[in-house]
């Protein structure tokens, strides 16, 4: 067990995998000499040298494709996309090449690569540098998606992603890089992909969260008056832990999914759909999604905070659901919300 920041936990995970397996390499913009724009590869160049730790030009398609080719022929590359929006220029290589090679080779070509990207709002980077964009990936078979929610799972999920024989996208909420926490290092610390973590237990509702909304939900449950909640951190969005969610809902009878992304096309829609289809009889209230509105991430500090689902908002929405038995309107649908 060690105490570290999330960015340090990521660097430790990559370093531990590199130490154990000479096929693991890492590259990206300012990843080597500078130790990463968010210091998620600090010290790796010094320890592993320039053959395995490389700076790239600003050429996301080029280096993502290089990760695909290297993975297809034996290496385990970890490619860093500084802000997930930059994946836009490299998306083909991840979702249309990497994710399909196993299928298109009759199972003979594996692509054990990791695409790491910082995601999310909260730091005032404006609408082209603040999105989460899971929706670019969740609908792409052949790809796993892990989302970090703090130093604790950053280490374990990153190591699992590097060890996985599929292409794995690891999404890292930028706002959490500096958060400190306890990390179980070593092989014991590895967290299997596809496994959720239940971080709080309660009776009245299941709060399903992921990435930045995990701490939001824990805070909301902590502030709750008159109700208690299971708080589930999905950890992996694809494939997600249906068992953890369904068994919790079977007990609580209610579900709220809390997402940082806009309402339309959000990953939570899949969770709700599955629960409604397979556990309709367990439900004592309509499942609810708590998301950002269908707008661009605003720049100003107050507006950006308003945009993101806050703990107070989650508490209020859940309280209303419990009181009325009906799904409450979103904040932006309420009278006077926009003045």
């Amino acid at each position, binding site marked *: 067990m060690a105490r570290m920041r999330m960015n340090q936990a990521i660097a430790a995970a990559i370093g531990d995998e590199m130490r154990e397996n000479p096929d693991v390499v890492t590259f990206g913009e300012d990843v080597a000499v500078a130790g990463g724009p968010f210091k998620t590869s600090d010290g790796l160049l010094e320890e592993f040298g320039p053959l395995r730790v490389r700076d790239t030009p600003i050429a996301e398609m080029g280096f993502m494709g290089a990760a695909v080719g290297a993975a297809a022929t034996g290496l385990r590359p970890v490619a860093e996309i500084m802000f997930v929006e930059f994946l836009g220029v490299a998306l083909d290589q991840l979702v249309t090449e990497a994710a399909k090679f196993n299928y298109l080779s009759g199972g003979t070509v594996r692509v054990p690569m990791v695409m790491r990207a910082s995601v999310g709002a909260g730091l005032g980077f404006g609408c082209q540098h603040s999105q989460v964009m899971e929706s670019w990936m969740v609908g792409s078979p052949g790809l796993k998606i892990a989302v970090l929610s703090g130093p604790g799972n950053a280490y374990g999920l990153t190591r699992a992603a590097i060890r996985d024989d599929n292409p794995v996208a690891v999404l890292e909420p930028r706002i959490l890089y500096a958060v400190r926490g306890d990390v179980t290092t070593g092989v014991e610390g590895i967290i299997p992909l596809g496994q959720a973590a239940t971080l709080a237990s309660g009776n009245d509702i299941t709060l399903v969260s992921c990435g930045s909304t995990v701490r939001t939900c824990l805070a909301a449950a902590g502030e709750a008056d008159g109700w208690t909640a299971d708080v589930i951190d999905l950890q992996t969005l694809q494939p997600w832990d249906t068992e953890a969610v369904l068994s919790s809902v079977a007990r609580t009878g209610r579900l709220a999914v809390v997402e940082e992304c806009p309402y339309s096309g959000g990953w939570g829609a899949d969770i709700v759909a599955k629960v409604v289809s397979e556990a309709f009889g367990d439900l004592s209230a309509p499942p609810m999604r708590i998301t950002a509105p269908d707008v661009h991430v605003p720049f*100003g500090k107050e507006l950006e905070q308003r945009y993101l689902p806050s703990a107070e908002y989650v508490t209020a929405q859940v309280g209303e659901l419990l009181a009325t038995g009906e799904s409450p309107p979103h904040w932006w649908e309420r009278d006077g919300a926009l003045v």
Partner: protein
Amino acid sequence: MSSEVLARREAVRTDRTARFERMVEIRALEDAVRGLFAEGLVHGTTHTCQGQEAVSVGVAAALRPTDSVCCTYRGHGMGMALGLTPQQVCGEIMGRVVGSIGGVGGSMHLCETSIGLLPTMAIVGAGVPVAAGAALTAQVRGTDDVAVAVFGDGAANIGAFHEGINIASIWKLPAIFICENNQYGEYSPIAATTPIANIADRAVSYGIPGEVVDGQDVDAVNAAVEAAAARARAGDGPSLLEMKTYRYAGHSRSDTAPYRPAGEFEKWYERDPINTFGARLVAEGLLADGEPEKITARVTEQVDAAVAEVKTADSPGVASMFENVLV
């Protein structure tokens, strides 16, 4: 607002003293940004352009307000050179309603269609093909407008650069691709990411003219862009111009540029674009002895006053989040 912006644009187009003043104004605003950080008035990040003022002003001086300009997140200087007021730029940096797009974009996002400035783009390379498209509009409609993309040295390694310039070349579009080579892409010196010394050399592979220009000399920048614009307006196709310049500050707010070799800044500062141009105007008799200093003092005071004014402006309300998402 747009008449003031257009007047500011016209001044730079016609008057070299105004070009000097504009360069001073850009420097003063960029320097003021640091103070705003210290006061906690800036959310998020900024990318300033101290040292690169001659490129912005030289380019703007050669273009018409009906020409289109695609620019990057390092856009304060280009925006002001084209005519944006210090209030519009500072307002955006601070997220106030007086900002260029009402304070919803932040430092990286400026726009002013009255002077041809399309929304500035925070994705490296994005503006190159967009400029080709703006040039396509001019070609299809038969106007003699041109479209310009201004981008960094680092952008010359991304696919959008190659795809955009190639399309512009085969379609003979009236475009000018202007690479502002400030020697670094983020923390990486250009040599670490680019195997050739001159990005202008890449023009050969697209079959268009490529030229290395002294980006610290506003007259040289202006002359090169004038020539490329004349060529484009005449229907002879695009050009690639590489402006050799230098970024005085770090890449962005949090960067103190520790990777810079000792003495490098000092070497470039000897050819500071504002100092050398001021001295030239004095030598030519366009300005009296000591006048550049007086102009600098006056313009800096005006910029400080503009910044103070922006501090009193409102921030956009919640409703702004829901505006302009769809038309």
